[in-house]
């Protein structure tokens, strides 16, 4: 089963590799991982998406908590939360497909960031499922390049995830 975990970790060199190294050393898989500093610059926040049965997820949570660099973590999957991913898409367009791509961009509330005679660069933010649907809907235009931010997650609880 897919699990989303939010992690606050010390914003220091090597902290990311401690998390990534833990996953490879213990043969856990990482579906996506994104990390950036928070309002408190001494802390980074990571959203990590992984897969495993309950036993594996329990071990992953315990092992992450054991890392000295991890300040706090929260498993988002069991609680009400939102998840978003940003995708940049470069699509090759021509006179036959240009209007179709523009229409799909409107329908999916994506936006075209850059236009050249032969290509669009499009930004799309949403749930992972929606961004995949959007990519599929662009055909017959040819998608030549994609970059995904990985999932970002936040619980809907009024209580914030904080380092203290």
């Amino acid at each position: 089963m897919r699990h989303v975990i939010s992690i606050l970790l010390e914003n220091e060199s090597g902290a990311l590799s401690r998390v990534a190294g833990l996953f490879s050393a213990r043969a856990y898989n990482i579906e996506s991982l994104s990390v950036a500093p928070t309002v408190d610059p001494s802390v980074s926040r990571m959203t990590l998406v992984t897969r495993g049965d309950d036993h594996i997820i329990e071990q992953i949570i315990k092992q992450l908590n054991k890392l000295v660099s991890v300040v706090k973590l929260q498993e988002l999957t069991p609680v009400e939360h939102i998840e978003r991913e940003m995708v940049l898409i470069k699509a090759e367009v021509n006179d036959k497909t240009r209007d179709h791509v523009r229409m799909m961009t409107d329908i999916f509330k994506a936006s075209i960031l850059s236009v050249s005679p032969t290509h669009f660069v499009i930004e799309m933010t949403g749930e992972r499922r929606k961004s995949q649907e959007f990519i599929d809907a662009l055909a017959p235009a040819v998608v030549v390049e994609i970059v995904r931010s990985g999932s970002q997650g936040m619980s809907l609880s009024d209580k914030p995830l904080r380092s203290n």
Partner: protein
Amino acid sequence: MELTGAQIFIESLKKEGVTHLFGYPGGAVLYIYDAIYQQDAIQHILARHEQGAVHAAEGYAKANNKPGVAIVTSGPGATNAVTGIADAYMDSVPLVVFTGQVPRELIGNDAFQEVDTVGITRPCTKHNFLVENIEDLASTIKKAFYIATTGRPGPVVIDIPKDVSNEKTEFVYPETVKMRSYKPSIKGNPRQIKSAVDAMLAARKPIFYTGGGVILSQAADELTELVRRTGFPITQTLMGLGGFPMSDPQSLAMLGMHGTYEANMAMHKSDLVIAIGSRFDDRVTGNVEKFCPDAKIIHVDIDPSSISKNVKVDVPIVGQVKPVLAAILAELDQRDAIFPAGNIENWWKQINEWRKTDCLNFDNPGDVIKPQYVLQKLHEITAGDAYVTSDVGQHQMWAAQYYNFDKPNRWINSGGLGTMGFGLPAAMGVQLAYPESTVACVTGEASIQMCIQELATCKQYKLPIKVVLLNNGYMGMVRQWQEFFYEGRYSMSYFDSLPDFVMLAESFGHVGMMIDQHTDVESALKEAFDRKDDLVFMDFRTDPEENVYPMIPAGGGQSEMILV
């Protein structure tokens, strides 16, 4: 007052109460070695290889319940230390290991003797640090000792660039350390402790299964009190031996792959397993699918990730063994709890039936030296009171089976990583911690050659270790597996050439003895242990094809033992 990084290193170690420092110099740590030269509060022990330095620090820590401290240079110094660091990580040994690093401006340039020490040691340390600013050095050392010695202990590496060790700053050693990201829990949850006591009072086929956590937490007294009070049987892991006296009638000795028949059968048939400071290692459980099918499991461990990792636990208690056992005893007192002998009378009857198998009995016809016999005699001659270190293999299992440890911290071996070469340097650390005590290193002719160079260190520091070499000419445990599972194809497990160990010991300035007659074993041991001031290296020529029994083959269940 402003001090250099090297002086801060010394002053910080003094603040931590460090008296022994195991190490080997090199380019990146020359400023630090210069500072070591100019003081005499801390004795530096010069090993002959960085692996030996770290194992010695481990032996010191394991016997002494104090953190072991080592220092090595950058590059090969650090990589040679990795085996010892990984060993300490697996066995939860509190160590602080300092590594030199190339100057900051050269880091990442493939400089001479540069490796990414923090990267290499990340997966085999509890935590590690690169000191990027001289202002951080003292507080980093404080944190390192705190992390290494609290919670589940383990090794911490501090990588110090050469230029940092020569920079100056005001020396302030923090009195306390507080880390928002590291807060080990000590006390167990009171509700779980009550549940554990309920389960213990209701059990009819209970067994204690205790491990290295008892030793690390210095909880042998509490454990002994609890075991005696309940009247339950107890079995101990390789790392836990001596936490409860093995000569006590309640002790079923060691469990696991080479554990006793009664210990493994009692685990298999029990209705309550009380696991204390043990971690359900694969060498203990055998096939986890067949492990303790009818038992409820209580598990006391300081490391939450050890709980329900390999085996599902019913009553988890996260906490340090000592306070948790004290809380269990207090709960028993509060309830005026008694454990009627009648509750477990049938259970003991069954166990005593299993005991009749006498699984550690061995043929001892006298025409050849049996390794088990040497260890029985070693126990007799040292009155069971020696510190015994070992290397890894058959001799290690025989020592665990036949020495009968009655006290904690007396059995010092490499359990988790299984590091050949551990025994001799570990014995140096033990002997330095306890100069007046008897220290024996039980080893094999394969293991001893892996850190044989440390015989020179033993000479330099006059360490009167007694090396008990069980020389069967084979890498015995490899050969045993090849006999059992590879149809006797002894691939590369036999040494066609071995040194003359007597001459070898003598060349290092020690006393060497070769014993190849059964009838000489006892007198040789007596003579060796009478030589209080000498390292005596005893080369016992033992039965070449003796096997370690009982044995649970890999993948087998607890009750599927090969007995002879």
